[in-house]
């Protein structure tokens, strides 16, 4: 697996980017953080669009920047595909010429992505002869993604490519991004401050705050790490779990998922049986019960768990990190903690009141 090594220390008039990172590059890695945390600047440094005076950057075996050797490749010499926040299509060319602009500029032997393939994945076959200003925002961004892919990049950088689109267009484009990654196997760095996009797309997350990398790991690691409560915000911590659809119950409007070998009920989903689904469980929606309750309960989802860690959040509440085959966080009051006598390693039951799903993960 290729690693991305980067060290940048750049001071701007009101902002200091101080990065030292070594992250594996496979799948889709989201760079996540609040506005002004330096996400775009980091991406521009990685691309060589912003010059970090003492910077160092290596992708796999290739060193793209090493200021000690006076080496800093310009963007056009780096095998990077870059999709900007705005489509930045060339207005004097039609869609076809835009798509092929980069393709024509790489050696034939280096072409690993074929135009037909990209046109099919992005569904832009009927747009090829159109002028750019005749396209909708979503169509323009699809062409921009296709144009970048056709340079057969070794690394694809996406800078909030959905930021300028409305919700519906966003939902249209997300599956394309997922699909192109699955089909073309190009590692993707995806900048976003939208949780929805990240939960749907990302395999790994790099958390950025005030120009620093404050955490990195798989989606599940990052969203269950109690350390990141402050960065992610109180309503985001919980668990991200990969589940699989096992059963539909249209009579009650429910879909049953298999989540780490335990059943999980969610509102009826338009997803075929056997298909994977990603679910987000918020820590505030998890209740803890010591021992199985014999009397009936209205709660549908009861999962067995082991307590891994307990951490104080503030004077009233604590976070409890649980293991249900995957990490899960529950936020409870300190009073409950003491009353129930919870401690490390204890086997308990968790009641999950609600499961947020892809469609509902909208801010």
């Amino acid at each position, binding site marked *: 697996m290729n690693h991305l090594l980067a060290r940048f220390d750049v001071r701007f008039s009101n902002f200091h980017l101080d990065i030292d990172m070594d992250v594996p590059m496979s799948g889709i890695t989201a760079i996540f953080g609040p506005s002004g945390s330096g996400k775009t600047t980091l991406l521009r440094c990685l*691309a060589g*669009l912003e010059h970090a005076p003492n910077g160092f950057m290596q992708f796999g075996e290739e060193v793209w920047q090493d200021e000690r050797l006076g080496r800093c490749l*310009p963007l*056009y010499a780096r095998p990077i595909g870059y999709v*900007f926040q705005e489509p930045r299509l*060339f207005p004097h060319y039609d869609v076809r010429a835009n798509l092929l*602009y980069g393709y024509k500029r790489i050696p034939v032997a280096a072409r690993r992505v074929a135009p037909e393939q990209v046109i099919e994945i992005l569904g832009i076959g009927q747009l090829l002869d159109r002028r*750019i*200003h005749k396209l909708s925002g979503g169509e323009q961004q699809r062409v921009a993604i296709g144009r970048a892919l056709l340079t057969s990049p070794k690394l694809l950088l996406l800078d909030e490519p959905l930021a300028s689109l409305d919700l519906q267009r966003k939902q249209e484009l997300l599956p394309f991004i997922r699909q192109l990654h699955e089909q073309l196997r190009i590692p993707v760095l995806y900048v976003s401050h939208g949780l929805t996009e990240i939960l749907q797309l990302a395999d790994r997350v790099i958390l950025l705050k005030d120009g620093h990398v404050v955490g990195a790991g798989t989606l599940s690691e990052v969203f269950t790490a109690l350390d990141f409560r402050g960065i992610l915000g109180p309503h985001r911590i919980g668990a991200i779990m990969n589940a699989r659809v096992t059963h539909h119950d249209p009579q009650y409007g429910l879909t049953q998922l298999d989540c780490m070998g335990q059943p999980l009920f969610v509102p009826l989903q338009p997803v075929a049986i056997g298909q994977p689904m990603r679910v987000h469980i918020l820590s505030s929606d998890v209740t803890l019960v010591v021992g199985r309750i014999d009397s009936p309960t209205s709660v549908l989802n009861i999962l067995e768990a082991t307590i891994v860690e307990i951490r104080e959040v503030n004077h009233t509440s604590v976070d409890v990190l649980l293991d249900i085959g995957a990490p899960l966080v529950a936020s409870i009051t300190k009073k409950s903690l003491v009353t129930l006598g919870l401690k490390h390693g204890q086997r308990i039951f968790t009641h999950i009141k609600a499961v947020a799903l892809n469609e509902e993960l909208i801010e």
Partner: protein
Amino acid sequence: MGTLTDLDLSALWVSVRLATVTVIVLLIVGTPLAWWLAHTRSRLRPIVEAAVALPIVLPPTVLGFYILITLGPYGPLGRLADLSLAFTFTGLVIASVFYSMPFVIQPLQGAFEAVGKAPLEAAWSLRASKLDAFLTVISPIALRGYVSAIVLGFAHTIGEFGVVLMVGGSIPGQTRVLSTTIFEHVETMEYGQAHAIAAVLLTFSFLVLLTVYVVNRRFPIHVS
């Protein structure tokens, strides 16, 4: 009303040749300068901008006087090369380049500022080198700026008078241009001839400006 004589036609030819050469020189020199002015953060920028704009406000005779001194046999350039460019076609080109510079630089600078760096970065990300990106992306998007620059630079050079008189004199076939020819016709009371040339220049200037405005209206560039 008179008609154009052979002498008038030769002046027309000198004018057209002068304007063409001047515009070509200015496009070559002006493109990098206008690009620099559009994107630099240097503190020198306002100084250069003021210097470029100077011919708009400076009396042409003042500009002509300095250029004459510089190009003459005792000027720095004359001594260096041991030749005098004053009263030659080459001298006239040099003078015109300075005189028409703002009319080429300013539209280009405006166009480059409007285009911005975004399309350039996009072209780089698609493996286009700096020159490649400039030729295939920036200059086509800035096409309107180029049309304005060429048309205004050409027309302004055709219309110059004071500088030409100072630097070029009015040597038939070499440095006598349309505008100075009118002056001489009037001096010698040949009003018919003067009318003919004046009408040519008036029509020409109007058509030129019309072209600029029509082009600007009909080919708006959609920058996304």
